[in-house]
């Protein structure tokens, strides 16, 4: 026997209360010196045994009342006492695998002739089960794909209606999280009031998932479910048809899928051009003509048709120009009809931002084109606008003379480049130092006009200035860049090859200050390990030093292809962008590590805003997205952005069409102590034939009622009020007189 509310069973110890009261009362009594002992003695002789028996019975009843009350509330369940399942209400937790593979289309035809995917098929089966549940049953649905979603405490009829929403659901879940979903289901069943508790796992049992980890996991789960206070039975309902399970080779089917979507560059400005490369795969034996569609949100942007040879891959490139400076979800869709339409689309979140403003202070500005250092830098930062007159550059630039700028101009600037600047006065140095500390990017390009002795007289970085070390005067030096295995700024291989072909004729060398608390980072070095590009973090920003000029006086670098990306990456790195950025696959948890904020306001795509209290420097789980889009977390005024999109690596594996064969599924079920059902009818028949423990609380309540009446009866029979009727009339006036003279 077990108890559904085992904790309340401890209330049975309350039987000691009447016992203690009884014992206490026994120890207390009055003492009376009594005359009429002859009547009392006779009464005791007659009644003692009967009264003792009655009192003991009354005590027993009073002890039994709290015991029965506690047991009735604890809801005892005798498992060896069988009862038919069909009449007993049950709690059913349905764990529905809604991972991507469940969107595969079944072979069965729907009523209106449309093909139904496995989710729709599973929903129909579940609805049938919910309709047939005994009266008083309750049910819940746990969507097992990452992140799991629970529809708990629903009446079977309401739940059945709600399940219809799954048929048209556009949200995509991650892989099946069996462990977490089963734990949620078990905890819901634990709180259930019904003695029959069942966990029904509805899945297509994809071979790639179930053959490896889930098999061991399901065995462990079976043990955990069986070891519960009230054991939880579980069974498998196969959402895939036997015909689908019989397909052993995915290649035998016609299937076109999108493997990956990449955007170049990763960031873009409004009106800029973004190249989106889509890799497609044709797994069939015949070539396929696939119309490809690029969508921005719900709007179609571009449509292309591509022919993919049999068993090969192909790449389609779209060029997309964003119109607004906001993070945008783009979707690539293959308008092709095959058995797995769920792999015909893929989403990507693209970051679109306003161009960064760069102020170029040129110490040797000339009127002729391409004679000043600033001309080369401008060309590197704004190639589209300068060469083609088109928008789309990541930066906008303005050039001023050494004395032509002030503190106010820095406030509206993201980065500053000082080219061939002879010297800076103390106020200017102070302004620039404050600018970098606020998060601005600063680049010093040395040159022939630089007065090294004045430069070396500046305040050191550790003293609140900008000097990184002692520079030597510009000397002739012939050499090149040192090749390195981990180049800075993630430059492409072509750019790196280009960088190694740079030849220098003059340079400045640097001796670093010993007093620097944070050692500077040498991003690119010369052959003799002298730094070519060195930087140091100051406050929230970063300051770069280039030891040669940025024009063609000291090297041929400006004429090399690497010059443009190098300067752009350098400024991109130097400038502190408004917020961090990363793309998270659907179903994965977005974790941030905010440094200062104490409160975060988090909104994920398709979900309501949540307020989270956080501890500084401790990673925090911001939630898991089920819907593609851009989530944001507000840490004070700072924004944390996160894009959610399907992961291309997972998709290939998730969409493998091979399912567990029936015999493999049987083996899995046997090891997990579960039964396998191919449809709802089979499961319902099996459940009806099963037997379960019988709950006894009704009998306990009846027993309790009977004890109450017995207690009242006994109490009445022992109380003086009941014996008052037998009191003889008072003999005070009974004067018995004899007649005079009768003797």
């Amino acid at each position: 026997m077990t108890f559904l509310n085992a904790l309340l069973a401890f209330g049975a110890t309350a039987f000691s209360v009447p016992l203690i009261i009884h014992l206490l009362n026994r120890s207390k009594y009055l003492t009376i010196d009594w005359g009429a002992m002859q009547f009392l003695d006779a009464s005791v002789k007659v009644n003692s045994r009967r009264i003792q028996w009655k009192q003991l019975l009354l005590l027993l009843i009073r002890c039994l009342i709290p015991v029965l009350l506690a047991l009735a509330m604890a809801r005892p369940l005798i498992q060896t006492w069988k009862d038919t399942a069909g009449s007993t209400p049950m709690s059913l937790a349905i764990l529905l695998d809604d991972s991507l593979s469940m969107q595969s289309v079944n072979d069965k035809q729907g009523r209106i002739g449309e093909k139904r995917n496995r989710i729709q098929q599973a929903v129909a089966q579940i609805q049938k089960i919910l309709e047939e549940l005994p009266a008083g049953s309750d049910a819940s649905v746990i969507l097992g794909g990452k992140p799991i979603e629970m529809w708990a405490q629903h009446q079977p009829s309401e739940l059945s209606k709600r399940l219809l929403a799954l048929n048209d659901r556009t949200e995509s879940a991650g892989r099946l999280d069996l462990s977490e979903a089963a734990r949620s289901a078990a905890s819901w069943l634990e709180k259930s009031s019904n003695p029959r508790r069942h966990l029904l796992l509805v899945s297509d049992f994809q071979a790639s998932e179930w053959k490896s980890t889930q098999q061991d996991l399901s065995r462990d789960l079976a043990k955990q479910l069986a070891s519960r206070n009230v054991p939880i039975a579980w069974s498998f309902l196969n959402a895939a048809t036997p015909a689908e399970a019989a397909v052993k080779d995915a290649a035998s089917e016609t299937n076109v899928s999108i493997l990956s979507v990449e955007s170049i560059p990763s960031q873009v400005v409004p009106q800029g051009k973004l190249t989106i490369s889509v890799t497609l795969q044709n797994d069939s034996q015949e070539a396929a003509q696939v119309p490809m569609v690029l969508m921005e949100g719900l709007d179609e942007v571009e449509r292309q048709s591509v022919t993919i040879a049999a068993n090969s891959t192909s790449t389609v490139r779209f060029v997309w120009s964003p119109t607004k400076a906001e993070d945008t979800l783009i979707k690539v869709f293959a308008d092709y009809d095959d058995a797995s339409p769920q792999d015909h689309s893929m989403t990507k979140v693209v970051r679109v931002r306003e161009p960064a403003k760069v102020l170029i202070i040129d110490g040797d500005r000339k009127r002729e084109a391409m004679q000043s250092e600033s001309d080369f830098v401008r060309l590197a930062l704004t190639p589209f606008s300068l060469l083609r007159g088109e928008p789309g550059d990541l930066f906008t630039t303005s050039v001023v003379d050494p004395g032509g700028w002030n503190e106010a101009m820095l406030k509206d600037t993201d980065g500053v480049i000082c080219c061939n600047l002879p010297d800076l006065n103390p106020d200017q140095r102070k302004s620039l130092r404050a600018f970098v500390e606020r998060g601005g990017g600063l680049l010093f390009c040395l040159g022939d006009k630089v007065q090294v002795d004045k430069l070396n007289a500046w305040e050191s970085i550790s003293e609140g200035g900008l000097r990184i070390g002692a520079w030597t005067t510009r000397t002739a030096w012939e050499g090149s860049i040192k090749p390195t295995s981990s180049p800075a700024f993630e430059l492409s291989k072509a750019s790196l090859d280009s960088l190694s072909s740079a030849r220098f004729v003059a340079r400045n060398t640097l001796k670093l200050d010993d007093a620097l608390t944070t050692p500077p980072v040498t991003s690119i070095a010369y052959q003799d390990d002298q730094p070519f590009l060195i930087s140091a973090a100051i406050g929230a920003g970063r300051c770069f030093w280039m030891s040669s000029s940025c024009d063609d006086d000291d090297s041929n670098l400006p004429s090399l292809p690497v010059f443009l990306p190098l300067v752009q990456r350098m400024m991109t790195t130097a400038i502190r962008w408004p917020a961090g950025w990363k793309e998270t696959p659907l179903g994965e948890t977005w974790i941030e590590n905010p440094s200062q904020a104490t409160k975060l306001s988090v909104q994920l795509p398709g979900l309501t805003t949540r307020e989270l209290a956080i501890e500084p420097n401790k990673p925090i789980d911001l939630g898991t997205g089920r819907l593609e889009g851009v989530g944001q977390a507000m840490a004070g005024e700072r924004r944390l952005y996160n894009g959610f999109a399907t992961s291309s690596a997972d998709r290939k594996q998730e969409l493998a069409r091979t399912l567990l064969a029936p015999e493999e599924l049987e083996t899995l079920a046997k090891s997990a102590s579960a039964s396998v059902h191919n449809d709802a009818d089979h499961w319902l028949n099996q459940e009806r034939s099963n037997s379960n423990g019988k709950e006894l609380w009704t009998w306990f309540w009846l027993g309790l009622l009977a004890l109450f009446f017995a207690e009242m009866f006994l109490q009445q029979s022992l109380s003086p009020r009941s014996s008052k009727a037998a009191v003889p009339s008072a003999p005070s006036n009974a004067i018995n007189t004899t007649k005079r003279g009768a003797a």
Partner: protein
Amino acid sequence: MSFLEFRFPTCYHGTFNIPPNPPFGLAEALVYPTSAIYFKFVLARTFVSSNPLFRWLKPTDIQKVSALQLLAKDVVEGVTGGIHRSRHIGASVDFKEHRPYVHGDEIRSIDWKLFGKTDRLYIRQYEDETNVRATLVVDQSGSMNYSGSRSNRLTKHDYAIRLASCLAYLFVSQQDSVGLVTFDTAIRKHIPPRARPNHLRVCLETLANSECQGETELGGVLHQLLSFCRKRGFVILLSDCYGNAAELFKSLSMLRANYQEILLFQIMDDDEVDFPFQNRTLFRSLELKEQQLLVDPMSLRKTYLNNFNNHQEAIQNGCRQNRIDWIPVRTSESFSAVLSTYIAHRGQA
């Protein structure tokens, strides 16, 4: 300390103490008719009561019973003249009957007027009146020492003493002889009946000094009493009558056969009649120290009352069969009122 000295002109002269909380008020005493009781106040520094009886016999009670007359229903044998019918026929004013003259009758008792009318000799007979010999038989067994919550701390024995005192006063005041017997398992004190006023003091002192103890042996005691009651008279039994009812009436019937008119005052406490106890109680016997019962009174009440009722019924039947006046009395009742009621009832019967 203040005290009162009462003088009773008809029966007793003595001094007694008024307790600090007297049962009657001074003002009440002052308004009594001085013809029946006169009193005077005597102040003294120290006072020793010469008679503890007056704890029991209050002037108010004497006042109430002094007007009563307890007459014998049966003819009695007295030695002096009195108010009761004598078994002897003698010179009196109360004509009884005529009977034919026989040889040996006194010539002077012949009714000559009737001889003139009928020419036959008849003797005129007159009824004689005499006094009565009353014996108060007071139970002083242990069971008489019970006082319940509703009896103002008055034990049954106290009640019996008060009642006996009143009766003794009553008999003495109507020139009858009164005697006293106290008993428990046997007769402890026996004072033969006397009619002298001083004899009342002796009886009352004996009553006042009696103490309750021991068991009751009513049957045996009454059997012993036979030897003391050889002449016709009153036997007034004051007891709770606990014990064997059959034995009691066996002895009482013998007394009755010995020409004794018997009054049975059965004195009971309210608690004994109603048995109102509810909590768990240890009952210790007043007669046998070693006898005690720890019981739940509520559960025993019904049986107890049945037993008690049966006993009372047996006593009532026994009294009826033996023509004994049975007066059941509760200690919560006023004994003078009980006495008045009884005598009034007796007069009507």
